[in-house]
């Protein structure tokens, strides 16, 4: 009798074998005539220009992270919303803690100004004043001809 894991194993084996067989069959059948045009990048018929490694603004990264928070939130909240009534107060409080944590994160981002596209005030790092009273100047060489 095949177990449940055995079924998954059979599934994976079939998938891998299928891909290998298709590769071999297409290798047998297809004519291979690579040309320069065929091997170039497909740009809708245009000449490929520039590098695909384009620099993106780092703020997209923050936006993507914020999006990810809500994305995961929705994914986790949907099954919770289906069953939380069966678990009573415990189920509700677990979901509430989760939501409060995410809300705190949201408030933090908001406070830090990550939801604004143009950062309102870029704050440069403040250097602490030191207690140096006497500053030694380096000796200046005189009569230096350039």
């Amino acid at each position, binding site marked *: 009798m095949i177990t449940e894991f055995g079924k998954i194993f059979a599934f994976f084996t079939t998938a891998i074998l299928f891909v290998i067989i298709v590769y071999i069959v297409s*290798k*047998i*059948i*297809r*004519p*291979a*005539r690579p*040309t320069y*045009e*065929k091997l*170039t990048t*497909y740009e*809708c*018929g*245009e000449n490929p220009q520039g590098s695909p490694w384009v620099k993106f603004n780092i703020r997209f990264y923050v936006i993507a992270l914020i999006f990810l928070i809500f994305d995961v939130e929705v994914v986790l909240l949907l099954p919770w919303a289906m069953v939380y009534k069966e678990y009573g107060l415990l189920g509700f409080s677990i979901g509430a803690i989760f939501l409060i944590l995410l809300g705190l994160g949201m408030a933090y981002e908001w406070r830090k100004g990550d939801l604004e596209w143009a950062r309102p005030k870029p704050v440069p790092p403040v250097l602490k004043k030191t207690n140096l009273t006497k500053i030694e100047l380096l000796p200046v060489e005189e009569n230096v001809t350039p």
Partner: protein
Amino acid sequence: MGLLDKQFEDSNIIITTLDDLLNWSRLSSVWQLHFGLACCAIEMMAASASHYDFDRFGVIPRPSPRQADIIIISGTVTLKMGIRIKRLFEQMANPKYIISMGSCSNCGGPYWQHGYSVLKGIDRVIPVDVYVPGCPPRPEALLEGLLKLREKIRNESLAKKKL
């Protein structure tokens, strides 16, 4: 070296049977390049839509020429576009077929005499398999052209062509 290179010297029963299988499978899934040029493209879309239903012949628009088997030149080919079409055709994987749809791509159509920017027939750039006349051709006409192309694919052989 693939079977479709057509390098077999003679056609015996194995090759002809394999012919039938390969041709049947190829003509049953002629994927077209997702590519429209002018007003003929509207008719091509109508042919792809539910009323005429190209999908029943296995004609599915593909976004990349690497996956496409046919390209339907649907409309006026300007000189600038001719270069692009040439490249798109070169980028398609062999074996590849071309349906020239409408008078413009057949011969220049209404732009034959005074269209200074129009290519006078796409067959000056790439080899055409089926010409579909009309300005623009109705979806039935394009369907007929596709059936002709299927006939062409059906009659191909793996054996070397006798000169």
